[in-house]
């Protein structure tokens, strides 16, 4: 880990200024569950680390005029356990419950979860100078892409790692951020941008902008489902969140794209009509129709389709009759370097 200067200002404005004025780059630290790993691996080598710990008023979860207001420093565990979240935004509570391990949930924060960096193994290893680290190559294209993007990829093919973001996109949440130009509120979907815009980062925030609060419209029926290879300490292979609110259905997928992926195709397929087993299946198929898998991740297409279909049914409270026809058959996936 590179040595750094550590600051702990008392206001978000001061924290933003501390980032802005850092001569050799700065990173914000909240729970540290992602940043510490990056520092240790020297993926991040800031000259300054700015803690939000001393900033008051960033922790609570409250309801205000039909919305849940969740402070950026609320821990993932607090969200998972909050009776308010469980009742008014169940998809978010389910997503929070699925994060990491009890230890990570106890320290990891909502703001940190939304701003965490991708888990792509090429990004995480200093020996691979990938696009995201300012290099010229996405190593996943020719390399091992079993956990990479099937939607929205290119030129970098990471998947966004946040579970909370997937739920929040479905729930039509917005995020309040604080920076040099003061405070602004943006829809959560606008917090993220595809690598085609800028492969070096996942969010649209200016370097000195800090997430202060998340606002979630309360009361929509919603559900979140996550498929992972093991039941703890694992990121989503695919995840889905669905909310059925007054403005119509909203569908988001995780683990499949460089951003939490909103599927307008699925939303259109569901329309305004009550969800049925058939419409859920059709919506899931529509969501994955644009999928462009890489060499090793074709299996994620039927997997995402299944997880989304079930999530839609769970959100609508419709019993699962099983898939309508045999699920799509993945072509044999022979992995490079494994064929002996």
């Amino acid at each position, binding site marked *: *880990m590179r040595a750094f200067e550590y600051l702990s200002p008392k206001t978000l404005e001061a924290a933003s200024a501390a980032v802005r004025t850092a001569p050799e780059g700065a990173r914000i630290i909240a729970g540290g569950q992602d940043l510490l790993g990056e520092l240790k691996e*020297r993926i991040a080598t800031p000259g300054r680390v700015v803690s939000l710990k001393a900033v008051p008023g960033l922790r609570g979860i409250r309801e205000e005029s039909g919305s849940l207001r969740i402070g950026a420093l609320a821990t993932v565990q607090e969200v998972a356990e909050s009776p308010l979240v469980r009742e008014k935004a169940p998809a978010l509570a389910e997503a929070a419950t699925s994060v990491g391990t009890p230890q990570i949930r106890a320290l990891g924060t909502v703001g940190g979860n939304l701003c965490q960096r991708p*888990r792509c*193994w*090429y990004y995480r*290893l200093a*020996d*691979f100078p990938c696009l995201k680290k300012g290099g010229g190559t996405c*190593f996943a294209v*020719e*390399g*091992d892409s*079993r956990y990479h993007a099937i939607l929205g990829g290119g030129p970098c093919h990471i998947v966004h790692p946040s579970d909370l973001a997937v739920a929040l996109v479905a729930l039509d949440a917005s995020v309040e951020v604080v920076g040099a130009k003061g405070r602004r509120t943006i829809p959560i979907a606008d917090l993220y941008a595809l690598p085609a815009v800028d492969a070096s980062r996942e969010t649209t925030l200016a370097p000195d902008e800090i997430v202060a609060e998340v606002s979630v419209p309360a009361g929509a029926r919603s559900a979140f489902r996550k*498929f992972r*290879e*093991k*039941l*703890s*300490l*694992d*990121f989503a*292979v695919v995840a889905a969140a669905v909310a059925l609110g007054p403005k119509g259905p909203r569908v988001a997928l995780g683990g499949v794209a460089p951003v939490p992926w909103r599927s307008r195709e699925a939303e259109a397929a569901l329309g305004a009509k009550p969800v049925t087993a058939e419409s859920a299946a059709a919506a899931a198929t529509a969501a994955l129709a644009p999928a462009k898998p890489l060499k090793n991740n*074709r*299996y994620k297409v*039927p*997997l995402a389709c*299944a*997880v989304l279909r079930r999530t839609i049914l769970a959100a609508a409270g419709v019993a*699962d*009759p*099983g*898939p309508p026809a*045999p*699920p799509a*058959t*993945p072509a*044999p*996936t022979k*992995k*490079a*370097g*494994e*064929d*002996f």
Partner: protein
Amino acid sequence: MKRVRRSQVEIEGKLRERTEVVEEDPSPPWDDRARLRVAGRPHPRLDGRAKASGAAIYTQDVGLPGMLHARILRSPHACARVLSVDASAALALDGVRAVLTQENAAAIPWYGGTTRLLERTVRYAGDEVAVVAAEDEETAEDALHLIRVRYARRRPVLDPGTAPRGGKPSVYTRGNARKAVSGAPVVVAGSYRTPAALHQAFETHGSVARWEGEHLTVWDSTQHIFGVRKELAAALGLPLHRVRVISTFMGGGFGAKNECGKYTVFAALLARRTGRPVRCLLTRAEESLAAGCRHATVQTLRLGARRDGRLLGIEHRSLCDVGAYGTDGPMPVGGPARTLYRCAAVRTEEVPVRTNTGPHTAFRAPGYVEGTFALERAMDRVAEACGLDPLEVRLRNYSPGDPRGFRYTRKGLRECYRIGAARIGWRRRARLGRRGTSLRGLGLASQVWPAGGAPPSHAVVKVNPDATAEVLIGTQDIGTGTRTVLAQIAAEELSLRARDVTVLLGDTGAGPYSLLSAGSLTTASAGPAVRAAARDARQQLEELATGLARGKGGRPGPREVCREIGDAMVIGRGARGPNPEGLKACSFGAHFAEVEVDAETGEVRIVRYVAVHEVGRVVNPLTASSQVEGGVLMGIGFALLERRIEDPATGRGIAVDLLDYKLPTALDLPPIEVLFVPGADPRATTIGAKGLGEPPIIAAPAAIANAVAHAVGADLPELPLTPDRVLEAIARGRRAP
């Protein structure tokens, strides 16, 4: 009296001829009639509290005054020539005390002389290039980034299919297998693959070295303190008596810590150079790159059988990717094919191939886990082809003896089948089926493993004036509970409680030689030695009692004898006797798994698991159950999740932390029911016990794969059973008639 004999010994599944110095052990074996009070009963670990509270000092915890910290610079290239190493900037960094490179380090031969400690050619991404010793770990780490290395890269060999041979193939034949299979009415053929898997012991590899004048003391996380002493002394050109190796507590090895590591030599060299103690520990990433693995296999298998399921021939060939160096040779992947079933015509061949990947090493039942997966998968297919129940096929091919022509001391596999089948409700198998997207399946697999232990192992028992005792033995407790089990054995013989006995192990300076803790050897080797020493002490006490007997006071009891003789203490000595001539001692087991497969996602959930083992006497049912649970856990990981992953272009490891290298967690485990076939095996050892260290992992992947295959109605030719492979199998099962 010691004598010399030629003997065959089977360790880690490899049969070897050797000259053995044996010392007869006159102890009458503890058979089923032996009335034991302490051995054979559950006893909590004597060191459990110390371990749980953090009081136990592992190698990682050793902190010495003035100790420096070493970190290793490793090659990022899978194949390269090191043109130059410039460490001047690193040496100039405040706090750096020494840097070892190929230019200033002794040219110590390594990997069987195929390379040296630090060499100009690096053969895998992770190969050692330089070592830094600094005042703290962070400074050492910083210094690594200041070392300038110029490499001339070469194209690495990564595909085992086209890789060069890495040594001589190991071939075994009995009968004419090719003819027997080709002429058989039922032939099952298949290709089965298993991945390279990592040990991932909780405690990473590491050593702390300290010189006191000409004497070197090394704390090491090792499975073989005496082996490390011997290799380290040879590497440094020291006489054995000047090297002491200590491993008081050890956080797991699973075969990857059987030998002296480069890190141990680095610590010793840097300590000598700086005049300070030096600690050299591997990080988790280094543990994943450079600490050994279970080698990957591609196995081709042909079974020929009669229509009634009886085997006529087995042909088994395995390509073993031993990685760079890989001087251990291929592991006995053909072992199960050679010994599990009665079959007159068998040919097995293990072919080592060499790639530019991390070298392999032994890993808990090396070869047998992989070979059992392929063989037991194929046996289920024989059953299917003959319209038989899988258990029935195994019973029809049951071999009461070792089919290579040896008798067993005891074989309790049939009882394992019976107990396990009853417990899991095997008869339900035919009725299991599909409910919605949920596919249910039941599978079983069998296991054989040479586990009778061997000489040499020596022990000393000191009896104190207060009638407590200490056992001195140069074995090590690698986390299995050896300390507790040996205390129970000594206590049994001395009529004491286990907690009245302290076992001093893991120190070459304190205890006499005992074998490495590998090959399921420890209880069956060290156990009888401790018993013999304790028995010797007891007999001395009895003789003294006769001498001390006087008048109407009568003959004093052992406690009084101890008090009376005071510091003229009784010292018992014992050695592990020879193995029985012409008999093989193996442990057996059968595992049963019930799974639920999600037909839409390929997710596999194990809903029930029953593990039954026959290991002779179970000295401590508590630690034995833990051992089985741990083995099953490891087997579940190998079946469903784990694999070492290299970038296909560069050969660099990319799943090098415990997020990407997926070990099962507590949430992923089913309830594991552990059962043992009752009764001792007094022909195997004087304590009636056989080994249990490795057996619990052997059958697990096969049992799970068989259950999943039953659920999806298709073969599963490759581990781990990840969703993509399961979905693909489901699709194949659906297409099948």
